[in-house]
């Protein structure tokens, strides 16, 4: 039996179908979850995909965070269930305070879509075990509110605890503090990042690289091993 990975659809979510595909490509079962349902359908892990939930109105992720499905996700995440937030999903996770900090408008004020180089700074999270710590990968980045900010104390704490999970390499595309592209919670089960691993799981598609597949194989392995 394979792992069941939930993929949440909020109104305005865009990358739900791609994320489901990425989950399938990795060999797991993708379970669609609807924002109005508290029921997580007994999934083993949840991905909050990218997009513009509620149009990014007010602030990215601000309205979605109050949806019924998030009540359950927050509860389960605190109990240890693996949760991955990609782009808009990461924004939702910071709005819920499952992850610290916040995302602001890119420093150049434009939406930016590019193939972005990252360094995986830790492989001791639920979603990065298949990478080497220090491994460099390239996956698509696409957002307008991608600049990670937190106060100095929080940033120092993240660094000290090894919770900066991904850092931008070559160029910092948006002015993120300390080049942070993604972070994890203390327990390593909740991870958020701005770039899009789900767009980099098949050769030919997008940038033609498969550097993002490791996110989905990592979680699959972890869940199957846990059985």
């Amino acid at each position, binding site marked *: 039996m394979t792992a069941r990975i939930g993929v949440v659809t909020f109104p305005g979510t865009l*990358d739900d*179908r*791609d994320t489901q*595909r*990425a989950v399938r490509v990795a060999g797991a079962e993708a379970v669609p979850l609807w924002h109005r349902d508290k029921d997580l359908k007994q999934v083993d892990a949840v991905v909050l995909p990218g997009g*513009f939930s509620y*149009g990014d109105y007010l602030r990215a992720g601000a309205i979605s965070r109050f949806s019924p499905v998030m009540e359950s996700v927050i509860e389960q995440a605190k109990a240890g269930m693996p949760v991955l937030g990609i782009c808009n999903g990461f924004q939702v996770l910071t709005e819920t305070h499952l992850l610290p900090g916040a995302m602001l408008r890119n420093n150049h004020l434009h939406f930016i879509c*590019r193939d972005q180089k990252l360094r995986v700074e830790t492989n001791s999270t639920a979603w990065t075990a298949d990478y080497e710590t220090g491994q460099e990968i390239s996956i698509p980045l696409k957002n307008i509110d991608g600049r990670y900010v937190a106060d100095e104390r929080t940033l120092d704490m993240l660094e000290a605890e090894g919770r900066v999970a991904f850092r931008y390499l070559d160029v910092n595309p948006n002015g993120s503090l300390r080049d942070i592209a993604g972070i994890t919670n203390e327990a390593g089960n909740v991870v958020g990042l701005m770039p*899009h691993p789900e767009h980099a799981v098949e050769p*030919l598609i997008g940038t033609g690289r498969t550097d993002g597949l490791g996110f989905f194989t990592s979680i699959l392995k972890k869940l199957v091993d846990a059985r």
Partner: protein
Amino acid sequence: MTLDTVKHATETPEAAQPWKELGLKEDEYTRIREILGRRPTGAELAMYSVMWSEHCSYKSSKVHLKQFGEKIPENDAMLVGIGENAGVVDVGQGYAVTFKVESHNHPSYIEPYQGAATGVGGIVRDILAMGARPVAVVDPLRFGAADHPDTKRVLPGVVAGIGGYGNCLGLPNIGGEVVFDSCYQGNPLVNAGCIGVMKHEDIHLAKASGTGNKVILYGARTGGDGIGGVSVLASETFESTGPAKRPAVQVGDPFQEKLLIECTLEIFGEKLVAGIQDLGGAGLSCATSELASAGSGGMRVELDTVPLRDATLSPEEILMSESQERMCAVVEPGKVDRFMEICEKWDVIATVIGEVTEGERLEIFWHGEQIVDVPPRTVAHEGPVYHRPFARPSWQDVLQADDANKLARPANSAELKEQILKLVASPNQASKAWITDQYDRFVQGNTILAQPEDAGMVRVDEESNLGVAMATDGNGRYAKLDPYAGAQLALAESYRNVAASGAKPLAISNCLNFGSPEDPDVMWQFAEATRGLADGCLQLGTPVTGGNVSLYNQTGETAIHPTPVVAVLGVIDDVTRRTPIAFKEEGQLLYLLGDTHEEFGGSAWSQVVHDHLGGLPPKVDLERERLLGEILISASRDGMIDAAHDLSDGGLIQAVVESCLRGGAGARLVVPDGLDAFTFLLSESAGRAVVSVPRSEELRFTDMCGARGLPATRIGVVDGGAVEVQGEFALSLDELRAAHAETIPGLFA
């Protein structure tokens, strides 16, 4: 306030009406009175005036557009032709593809962000209304001079608007154009295209049939936006202080449109609609009259049931409002509940506003009183038709006699090198990455090729790897020199771009951007361009499935260059065989396909180096284009080439530079016998492409070209870190990249 009911109109035949302010001609107003046998009510007048406008009725262009239906090539692919929201073609395996390009030029000049954004929103709803899931967008754009201050206002806003809307909808932007020319200074062209995919059985049409079926309006509430001129009606018809003049600008809500897409697709999935129409220009007037006109019966609408954002709107204004993100569906009574449930699921407001009736009239009521009673065909499909006078402009001969081949050419290699560097860095030839990086090209996870490739390509089926490709092209400079040839060159270039990506061109859509039809010069350009395009499509076997006409693009007396933009759709059975433009593999051989003549009329070189426009555009040979296309497609399918790039503005050197920069490899070129370096590098002869051939495939490839009679000249090899033309000059990739990449951000960032 007295309501101008049908009864009231009958009783007050002599009441003065503001038909002139609404843009109607006297004979048109007279005709409306004849059709109705009385004076129109205010609401009827509003409907006729907007539906008989140039924009909605195509009254000046119709007689010329007819050719697209008459000169139609044999082509099994066409499933739905001109006349519907968008044409539909068969791409195999049970899939159908619908696509179309539309203009949003004037609104984008007034309010660049919202004008462009709502342009994307409108074309996406057209595609959705055919029953398809929108899968990609493209955006052919034209602006005034790159260094003009107003371009700094317009371009960033337009780009942000297209990105802001398209990105939020989750539609990858896979292509388009950015052209600068001072002729577009007061008239930027913002065209937007969309591609949608469905199964054959899911095709939906805009018609209302089945007496008793319900008419449902769903999506955004109706507000006072985009009403513009119609508010004169309100103030003329009603005494005292009529509503404030309503804004002509519409504000888009892409989030609402995303919900509308998902909701509509779910409704299609359960086969709940009998007919469907998007609301675009002319709002409810257009949707109700077109649905009724195309259907078998009549329609009755209770206008006061329309959900409003602004309670002070008059019935005329409600009919005219161009509030975005709305659709109108015709639904059997037994399916209404389920329809409503799906709308509720997606937080989409839906309201039954009327039903299909037995008769043949479109009847609209306001608080129980009848304000419209018209035969819908006379509103929607039987508008005025003009045979506008046209004549070859007096200046055309002088323009053509001003031969670009006589312009001073570079005197030596150093000058040639300098001019090429200048060309590569010129706004029209420079990299548009600063613009296209503001568009999401990855969303939906099916993008095979996107900018800066020759054509955009998306996968349609994950199992079989079926895909579709699209390119858009148009060269106003060529069209100005010769509109007939210019339209064919636009077609040829777009066709070539699609073929270069490895896809087989199937059909086209177009967006015809011209000046005022009341100017016989402009009308001649239009007549020539449509004739050229229709003849060209017949010859290439690519039918016109639909399109859009935008007239009155001019500032004062001065019209823009005639700018027919052609979008070619192609199909590829296996996307893994697609051909990118990048030169990557050191040692691969470069072949130039096609013939090179001394052709500089309208060229990028003549513009950048001499600021000149004159002479004749490159010669068109559509048989050659077809042959070139076939070779490019076969070579891609059989793995004979690793890269291909079509040649267009900027000639061979521009293509080589782009391919080298894309792949990160240099090229060593040798000027072939019989050509001088200048002509070899910079001529813009049509029907050409450059390909990168693995050495192991050289013989097979040249044999194929030889056997089929396509000239293929070995011009060099992929090698090193520079573009070197033997005996002439070398330009390092770093130097080229800087020249190519820095211009646009330097102007607009």
